[in-house]
């Protein structure tokens, strides 16, 4: 069965007269992953999926969704029947105000597909060996990581008219290097849409992890207190880069965003501009149109430090008396909801080299990686996160490795206290950062660092 377009056509033809509206997507993907640790491959994985996703509107404002594997047009018909029956029993949604109903031209995406992807699958184990070797040569004793690489196609149609298709490839490499000790470690990341052209970058990620782990050797307990922090792109993506993604009406409505009452306010210094950019070349979540068939565009969320826009789909745009930004997405794991969501978060690059960011006279810590970010209150932004891997106290010309500290602060305060942006803008996507975020290093004033009391 290779005529996937025929399946979405059939879903719409079969379902359009039985519903007020129906959206159908068929996603076909092949994914692979190689996981490694202690300098050896632990497991090689492969996934094959062909999934139909449906979103239906029946009896005015009842909305429901389904996602399931399919093998034939009979399966498609059953899925449409099921979603209509199920949705018909639901109460009216109070969060539905319509879908895209005009057919518009879609922007052209650049470079989202790697034509040499299939040959990369065969080369991947050897590339892992090169990554491990480069890390060991740079000073690591032990190397762990995972390389994921997928190719996918999708076909879309709406009963309101819009339709389209797309294809993409992507890869995600995470490398972590250790000395023999548990807490002298370094991280290297690489991600992109063309794995076959990225071998050198992957090897560089391994080398970086190894070098950082060696530089972290001998790290001593850090002293709690207030410091200026220089966040690497990896850390900035998680702590600061997540904020524009919360310019989302649904996040605001459920109390999960600090931006609800900040529209038009200066929330960052005027040299900070960040967009949701579905058209970003090489972006892992780049797309030409959204889940309703609205063309995607670049949305400036923070412009010169001022909160300028929220992400919308048709429903939230009508609720907020605004316009859709082409951000509609069917989101969720076991149950899927149609709501606005980020594509790629893209910060404008800064103009400081990393050496300039670290050329300081105040107590400053360089944080290269972090994980386990948790909030006490998502509306106000109080949170903490744990720097992991190499972390350095900058003391004049010297960089002293330190360990065992926690950033315990407020994300909105930190956003407003950015002091300088680096010129090393990088796309970040890994375990801790699941929205592709293109962001430079940044220096932030007066951050609160805490540590265990016993």
């Amino acid at each position: 069965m290779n005529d996937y377009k025929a399946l979405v056509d059939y879903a719409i033809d079969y379902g359009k007269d039985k519903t007020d509206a129906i959206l159908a997507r068929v996603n076909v993907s092949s994914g692979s992953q190689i996981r490694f640790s202690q300098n050896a491959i632990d497991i090689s994985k492969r996934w094959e999926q062909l999934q139909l996703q449906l979103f239906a509107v029946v009896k005015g404002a009842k909305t429901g969704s389904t996602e399931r594997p399919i093998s034939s047009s009979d399966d498609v018909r059953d899925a449409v029947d099921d979603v209509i029956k199920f949705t018909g029993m639901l109460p009216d949604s109070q969060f539905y105000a319509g879908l895209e109903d005009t057919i518009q031209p879609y922007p052209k995406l650049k470079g989202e597909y790697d034509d040499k992807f299939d040959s990369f699958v065969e080369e991947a184990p050897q590339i892992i060996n090169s990554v491990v070797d480069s890390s060991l040569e740079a000073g690591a004793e032990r190397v762990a990581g995972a390389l994921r690489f997928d190719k996918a196609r999708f076909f879309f149609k709406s009963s309101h008219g819009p339709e389209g298709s797309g294809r993409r490839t992507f890869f995600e490499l995470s490398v972590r290097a250790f000395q023999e000790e548990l807490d002298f470690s370094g991280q290297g990341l690489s991600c992109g849409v063309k794995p076959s052209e990225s071998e050198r970058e992957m090897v560089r990620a391994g080398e970086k992890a190894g070098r950082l782990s060696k530089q972290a050797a001998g790290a001593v307990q850090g002293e709690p207190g207030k410091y200026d922090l220089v966040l690497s792109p990896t850390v900035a993506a998680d702590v600061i880069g997540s904020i524009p993604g919360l310019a989302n009406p649904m996040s605001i409505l459920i109390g999960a965003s600090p931006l609800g009452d900040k529209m038009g306010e200066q929330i960052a210094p005027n040299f900070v501009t960040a967009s949701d950019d579905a058209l970003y070349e090489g972006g892992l979540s780049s797309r030409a149109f959204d889940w309703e068939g609205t063309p995607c565009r670049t949305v400036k969320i923070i412009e010169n430090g001022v909160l300028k826009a929220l992400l919308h789909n048709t429903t939230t745009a009508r609720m907020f008396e605004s316009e859709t930004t082409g951000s509609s997405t069917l989101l969720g794991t076991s149950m899927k909801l149609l709501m606005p969501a980020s594509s790629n978060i893209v910060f404008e690059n800064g103009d400081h080299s990393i050496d300039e960011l670290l050329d300081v006279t105040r107590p400053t810590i360089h944080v290269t990686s972090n994980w386990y970010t948790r909030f006490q209150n998502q509306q106000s932004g109080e949170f903490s996160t744990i720097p992991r891997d190499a972390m350095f106290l900058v003391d004049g010309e010297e960089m002293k490795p330190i360990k065992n500290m926690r950033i315990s602060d407020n994300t909105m305060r930190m956003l407003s206290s950015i002091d300088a942006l680096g010129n090393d803008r990088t796309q970040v996507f890994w375990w801790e950062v699941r929205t592709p975020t293109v962001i430079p290093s940044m220096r932030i004033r007066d951050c609160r660092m805490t540590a265990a009391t016993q």
Partner: protein
Amino acid sequence: MSLVKDGKDLADYCVEYGRRLGATYVEARYVRDTTRGLAYRNGQPVSGGFSPSTGIGVRILVDGNMGFASFDRLEKKLAEESISVVHKMTKTAKRKTPIDLGEPVANRAKWDMKVKDSLRDIDIESLMELSDSVNKQMDGLVAFTFTINPKVMDKYLVTSEGTQIESQQSYILMYSILTAKGNGGSEQRYLDLTLAGGWERIKETNLIDRVLDEVERLKKTATNAVKIEELLNQPVDMVVGPEVAGIIAHENVGHPSEGDRIMGREGAQAGESFWRDLKIGESRVGSDVVSIGEDPTIPNTSGYYLYDDEGVKARKRVLIKNGILHEPLLNREFGTRFGSGSNAAARSVAYNREPIIRMANTYFEAGDHTFDELIEDVKLGVYMRSFMEWNIDDRRYQSKYSGSEAYLIKNGEITDTMVKRPVMETTSIGLLSAIDAVSKNLGFDFPGTCGKGDPSQGCPVYAGGGELRFRKIRLGGVG
């Protein structure tokens, strides 16, 4: 309990096909699950979803290298292609130290979570009625969400060593994010209300009353909690409830006890473990009163199973006994490497995920104190009933638990004074060593979704304990 026949047949065929390719071990897991769900915001319906899922995951061992293939359509040709591709990838891994699963396992069994009212028979009206009742309890909050997803999962596990196990698990997945506004600003709470079993669990566990109780407690916290300087100036005693005991058991003990972490397999993701540099059976990490159980055989829990996802018969594990490291969590691969064999800790949350070492139900074994006895000789301290923000480093050594509902204890009594966000920021050994008493009141107040693996596997678990008393804790927030 019945499974789609061609899924089982295809799983059997996958084992045969993998063997034909030359794999020394093949394991196929056919999983069929169904979830139906509703989502609400401030009591108003947002949408609903209905997603049946099927698929097969196959692990193969080739020349000591491990491979995993999964596919969602039950098609023989697709199965062959997937296994062939992964067989080729796996062969090229060329490990110097081959993976060894130890002694063969050949268990045949059928097990399920005992349910009275099957979730498959619950109609959508019942879900809506329950949701309306839950939402009513949240009146007066400034924002609240409620999602409910009953999920039934059938599995058929077959291996080339002769294991054949059928199982059925049943969960009512329920989550809420609550925001209350009071004098001191807003306070939030994330509630995981997940129940394991049939629809009868809603009544048996007094779900509606429990939700109302949590909502009222959050409102009270937002209105009354204040910072108390006296608590920051000196070491104080802390008493924590079963929810906080549960998260400590899970994070500070359960995770570092995972054999794959200890041996470094999770190095790039969930991390390694401070247990690596200690001696199991010898190293002291807590006081004498600290014993941590880990038991998948407790009925009506999210961690319940009778055979793990490698077909090994489940049993209780004791991770820490009287303060001393006692036993790590192990699957077959790491059971072999530790020399003790598996203790049935392999779990896979979906057909497209490899089985890895996971917790089930992790808890502080009950002690011999009443709750009143824990409180009565505390001169100055805090009773922290629940928590909100928490995290721990990836060696599982530096943890932070920030209180939600907390009360000042003075001269042996819990006062009405509520303490705003007390922070326990300590090391694992520092924390476990400060415990001098555990109450008799064992409760599994912390249902949760444990995160681990790459791709991530959100695994349903329970955690708990009796109330714990810590002596001379320096509250955190320093800096």
